[in-house]
């Protein structure tokens, strides 16, 4: 090591070195009397070798300097353990939080889905002619698409029930249980590229009108069959029909949501009813997923599918109601816009928090610079160039940031380990896993380096602009003023960033509060009603009469339980799920327009439903026991439907036809108050009720209301009541209406909580900055304060000086922050409901919060300033 330094210091140009050496050698030889012929090639060889040597030495020297700086930086940090710990923890907090949020953004936005060649996976959807949304895909249409498409390698359809609902498995230990199932076409696993861990997956030869083969998930196989190695070939009873297990697939596979078993969609029979019950109907909401041929663009597939669908519609004579076919990357469908923009929001907020951390550490470092000013001045005087000193200071910053980054990465790992418990169900598709991986580590390293350079620039700028000789003489009595200005600007920036985050949190909080307090439309107390799901399947319930008998019998049994005040059936939970979705309808006598048929949320409810959840009937009558299968068909409409489609006439007595139910016209017997299905549902969302006695549904929900007390305590009695009617029908997805409503607002609540937590953090960081910079400025103005006090100023006067100093910084910060919040407001508008992005109340509240905390932060420095003792200061 010494070698390179010495040769460096005393070096002469390489050419002279070589020439001198050779000349000396030749002269000595001449003196000896022996003059061998000079070798002409040797000079060139030596120059080449020398150049290589010098290059290496420069590199060595550079590395050595860095190493020296690093060692020096570590020594410096050891000298100031308090400063180091605070700085490292601050940075670790910022970098750790950023890395954790990045892991989410990476999984959601950047990383491909865990399927082979996931970029070739597309979903194909059909959209109705109305703005209404996705429409049902008919299985027959799907088969046409599959056979006619040339851009897809393969295509599969799957029916994914909304919430785990599925067939009932019996016979294992006598008990009946609902098993979550997805019903798919045989190509399903091949399209997604999933290989079984045991047995096989479906093959084309399994296709039939009554398929009896199933594939199990690894978890279900282990949990329910104890990992039976001979599972393949075993018979399992589903919906009272025997099925054969043909294979098991790994738990790392998931399609949209978890499923325990996969079974086959029956091939449509010649007389397939379009509203089949019991089995999954042939016109359920099918998910169609296809694998593009290599090199085919989604746009090409879109063009082709549009042509295929149009030709199909023409052949079926459906030209009047064009449906659009949409080819979208599977990734977009699986992950969804909400999750994508949510992770962008988090990334933005946490980025601001990191900047705040940076600013605070920069402030700390600047404060230390004043202590080290003399040290640096001495270095300068001894011949260290400004570039050299700057390099050394930057190295110190990067080493500090490196420590912060290392701790931060561990912190991020900790966050990600516990995060799944806080994330609401259904926000994150189960197939996405969060953890510290190579991507996150690289991001963390990048952030660390950036942060090190960012806050490292402050002292570098300070030093390279401060006159060193002055600093050497200064003894800290006068300040150059420059460091102070940088620090003020940093604090103004910190306040501004905190204001932006506070405003964002405030807007989200108002949104959450509005959503939580929304009037759901029903009057029963939310925690007095419990709901559960039943699913009547199999030969026993193949007729409407059988279903109706079950529903009536259960209602009678449940209403007989002591404490139960009412019980009813419904296919839609208020503030929760809607099983039937939107159906188009037509008001009799209204002008029929072919391309914009209105849609309504269709609900099949028992007569007791309105009483059970207490939905007021504002006109006409509710359903009664006398609305039966053999009486005239009736319907009840919501206020919005009456307002929008029956304006100017008496809704009661009007007639309405609902699609999917033949040409039956129903008489409207009543108007029900609007009931919200989602908290952010628009007020004009139309709803339509039909009595379950006229359209019995085997898949429906039981609602039970208690007069008082905990409704959950009734669950076992309710189960027993159902058991008395049919031992083999389980009650699933038990939830009170309170649970249901809370689940509906879980996402906004989660967003609000997280952003609010960051806002509190930002506020705390900004206040540490304010307090620090004021304390520093008070220390520097001690002589001024002492003079003022000596000349008769009161302590109150001195405090006012500090307060007004704080007020100036605060005003500048708040003004900048509010401007920023106004500019950024639009970017959060997607998350807001019932509140404008420039909501004045929120902005005012954010200003008040920051002003109050800033005042608190200024208290200590102001008090210190007023306690300046002139006698002590002058003696210094």
């Amino acid at each position, binding site marked *: 090591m010494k*070698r390179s330094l*010495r*040769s460096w210091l*005393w070096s*002469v140009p390489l050419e002279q*070195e070589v020439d*001198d*050496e*050779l000349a*000396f*050698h*030749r002269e*000595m*030889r001449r003196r000896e009397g022996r003059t*061998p012929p*000079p*070798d002409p*090639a*040797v000079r060139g*060889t*030596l120059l080449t*070798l*020398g150049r*290589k*040597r010098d290059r*290496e030495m420069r590199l060595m020297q550079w590395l050595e300097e860095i190493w020296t700086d690093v060692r020096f930086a570590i020594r410096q940090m050891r000298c100031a353990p308090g400063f180091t710990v605070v700085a490292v923890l601050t940075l670790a907090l910022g970098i750790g939080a950023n890395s954790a949020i990045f892991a989410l953004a990476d999984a959601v936005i950047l990383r491909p889905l865990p399927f082979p060649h996931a970029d070739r996976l597309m979903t194909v959807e059909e959209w109705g002619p109305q703005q209404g949304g996705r429409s049902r895909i008919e299985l027959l249409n799907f088969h046409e698409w599959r056979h006619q498409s040339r851009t897809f390698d393969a295509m599969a359809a799957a029916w994914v029930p909304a919430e785990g609902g599925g067939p009932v498995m019996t016979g294992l230990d006598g008990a009946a249980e609902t098993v979550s199932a997805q019903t798919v076409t045989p190509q399903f696993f091949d399209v997604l590229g999933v290989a079984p861990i045991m047995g096989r997956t479906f093959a084309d030869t399994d296709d039939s009108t009554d398929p009896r083969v199933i594939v199990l998930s690894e978890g279900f196989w282990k949990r329910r069959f104890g990992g039976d190695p001979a599972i393949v070939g075993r018979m399992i009873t589903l919906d009272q029909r025997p099925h054969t297990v043909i294979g098991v697939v790994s738990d790392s596979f998931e399609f949209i949501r978890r499923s325990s078993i996969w079974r086959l969609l029956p091939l449509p029979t010649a007389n397939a009813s379009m509203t089949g019950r019991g089995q999954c109907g042939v016109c359920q909401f099918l998910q169609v997923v296809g694998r593009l041929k290599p090199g085919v663009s989604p746009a090409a597939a879109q063009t082709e599918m549009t042509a295929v669908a149009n030709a199909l519609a023409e052949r079926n004579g459906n030209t009047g109601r064009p449906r659009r076919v949409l080819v979208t990357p599977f990734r977009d469908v699986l992950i969804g816009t909400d999750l994508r923009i949510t992770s962008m929001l988090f990334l933005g907020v946490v980025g601001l928090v990191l900047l705040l951390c940076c600013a605070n550490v920069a402030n700390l470092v600047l404060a230390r610079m004043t202590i080290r000013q003399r040290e640096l001045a001495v270095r300068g005087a001894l011949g260290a160039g400004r570039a050299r000193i700057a390099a050394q200071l930057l190295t110190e910053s990067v080493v500090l940031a490196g420590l912060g980054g290392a701790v931060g990465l561990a912190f991020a790992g900790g966050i990600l380990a516990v995060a799944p418990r806080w994330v609401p169900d259904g926000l994150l598709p189960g197939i996405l896993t969060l953890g510290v991986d190579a991507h996150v580590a690289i991001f963390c390293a990048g952030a660390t380096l950036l942060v090190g350079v960012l806050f490292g620039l402050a002292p570098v700028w300070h030093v390279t602009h401060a006159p060193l000789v002055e600093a050497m003489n200064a003894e800290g009595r006068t300040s150059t003023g420059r460091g102070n200005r940088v620090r003020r600007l940093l604090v103004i920036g910190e306040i501004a960033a905190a204001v932006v985050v506070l405003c964002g949190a405030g807007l989200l909080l108002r949104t959450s509060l509005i959503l939580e307090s929304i009037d759901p439309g029903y009057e029963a107390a939310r925690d007095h009603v419990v709901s559960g799901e039943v699913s009547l399947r199999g030969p026993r319930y193949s007729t409407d009469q059988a279903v109706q008998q079950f529903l009536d019998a259960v209602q009678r049994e449940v209403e007989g339980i002591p404490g139960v005040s009412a019980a009813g059936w419904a296919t839609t939970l208020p503030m929760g799920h809607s099983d039937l979705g939107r159906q188009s309808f037509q008001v009799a006598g209204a002008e029929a327009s072919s391309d914009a048929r209105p849609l309504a949320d269709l609900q099949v409810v028992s007569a007791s439903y309105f009483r059970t959840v207490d939905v007021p009937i504002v006109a006409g009558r509710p359903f009664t026991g006398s609305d039966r299968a053999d009486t005239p068909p009736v319907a009840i409409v919501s206020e919005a439907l009456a307002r929008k489609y029956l304006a100017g006439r008496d809704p009661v007595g009007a007639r309405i036809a609902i699609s999917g139910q033949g040409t039956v016209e129903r008489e409207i017997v009543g108007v029900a108050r609007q009931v919200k299905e989602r908290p952010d549902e628009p007020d004009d969302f139309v709803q339509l009720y039909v009595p379950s006695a006229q359209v019995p549904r085997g898949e429906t929900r039981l609602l039970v209301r208690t007069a008082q007390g905990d409704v959950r305590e009734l669950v076992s009695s309710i189960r027993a009541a159902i058991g008395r009617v049919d031992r083999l029908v389980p009650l699933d997805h038990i939830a009170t209406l309170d649970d249901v409503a809370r689940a509906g607002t879980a996402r906004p609540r989660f967003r609000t909580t997280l952003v609010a937590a960051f806002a509190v953090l930002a506020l705390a960081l900004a206040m540490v900055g304010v307090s620090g910079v004021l304390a520093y400025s008070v220390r520097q103005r001690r002589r001024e304060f002492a003079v003022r006090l000596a000349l008769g100023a009161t302590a109150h006067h001195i405090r006012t000086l500090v307060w007004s100093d704080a007020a100036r910084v605060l005003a500048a910060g708040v003004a900048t922050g509010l401007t920023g919040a106004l500019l950024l407001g639009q970017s959060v508008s997607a998350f807001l409901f019932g509140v404008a992005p420039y909501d004045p109340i929120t902005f005012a509240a954010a200003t008040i919060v920051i002003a109050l905390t800033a005042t608190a932060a200024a208290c200590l420095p102001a008090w210190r300033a007023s306690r300046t003792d002139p006698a002590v200061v002058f003696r210094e």
Partner: protein
Amino acid sequence: MADKTPNALLHGSLDALILKTLAGGPRHGYAIARFIEDTSGEAVIVEEGSLYPALYRMERRGWLDAEWGESELGRRVKMYRLTRQGRAQLAAETAAWREFAAGVSKILLAQ
């Protein structure tokens, strides 16, 4: 040994000879050549074409260290000295040579 060509024979062992020479103390290039020639009784002649490239290579490898010094005639010359690494290399090469020479001797000098 009519066409004895010492440089060809030496090709592999010049490094070792230079290291051994410098073990006695720092020397400039010419002095190294003279020392080897004198000590070998002029059996080994070291020319500039092989000496200096070898010195530069060994400096790069860190076996030698160079600095400017003054010659006996008062001229500025480059002095080479052995580094710790060079000393270790000398020991290794000496051991290797001893083994090699013993092996060759067993064959060439066999009765």
